[in-house]
């Protein structure tokens, strides 16, 4: 298991390879890359600053990954989240899940993203051409996380 919060960029191909290289039990790797868009809620975005709560962040991410590990039969998980100053086209987050079969890898990967979106202490501030604004939480993210409680 790998959980990292970092300012630097990451390499999704290398992360995916690390989840299955030399692991002949792995039949499936599902992964997700989240990126900075240049438009959000109808406004141009020129920069994105990610603030977090350092003492809590990795702990919170580890709890989410542990929950996924308890829920599905997974062989490995990687989660990388960037913080600091980003701009459109930059990568923000990587989640990769290795398992024997695809169903578990897909479910766990989406679960981790949905929980991260509602539970992990990150906050986004967008720079727009004229000013700055804190991104508001979306009700749709709460709904996505609620699905997994059924």
């Amino acid at each position: 298991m790998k959980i990292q919060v970092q300012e630097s960029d990451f390499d999704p191909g290398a992360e995916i390879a690390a989840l299955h290289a030399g692991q002949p039990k792995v039949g499936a790797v599902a992964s997700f890359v989240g990126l900075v868009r240049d438009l959000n809620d109808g406004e141009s975005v020129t920069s994105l600053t990610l603030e977090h709560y350092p003492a809590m962040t990795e702990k919170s991410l580890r709890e989410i990954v542990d929950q996924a590990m308890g829920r599905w039969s997974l062989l490995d998980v990687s989660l990388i989240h960037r913080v600091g100053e980003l701009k459109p086209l930059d990568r923000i987050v990587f989640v990769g899940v290795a398992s024997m079969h695809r169903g578990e890898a897909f479910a766990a990967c989406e679960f981790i993203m949905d929980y991260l979106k509602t539970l992990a202490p990150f906050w986004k501030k967008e720079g727009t051409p004229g000013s700055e604004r804190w991104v508001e939480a979306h009700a749709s993210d709460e709904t996505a996380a609620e699905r997994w409680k059924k």
Partner: protein
Amino acid sequence: MKIKVLYFARLREVFGVESEELELPGERAYAAAVIDMLRKRGGAWSEELALDAGYRMAVNQTLAGLVTPVQDGYEVAIFPPVTGG
């Protein structure tokens, strides 16, 4: 008892403070006691920390609610709903 309070993101900016030490009466309390004390400051404090204002809390780096216990040395964080990912 003394607790440490941290503020993040928009609330850090609105309150104009990143962290502070708070002295509360007694040896233990609910997190609600911290919120009550802060709301008494009025202005942005009473608005942003109103019951229906939508702020979130963590006690010792774990998401918490108004009835989560706090005691001497604990760390309470107050912040807007998270928006990572």
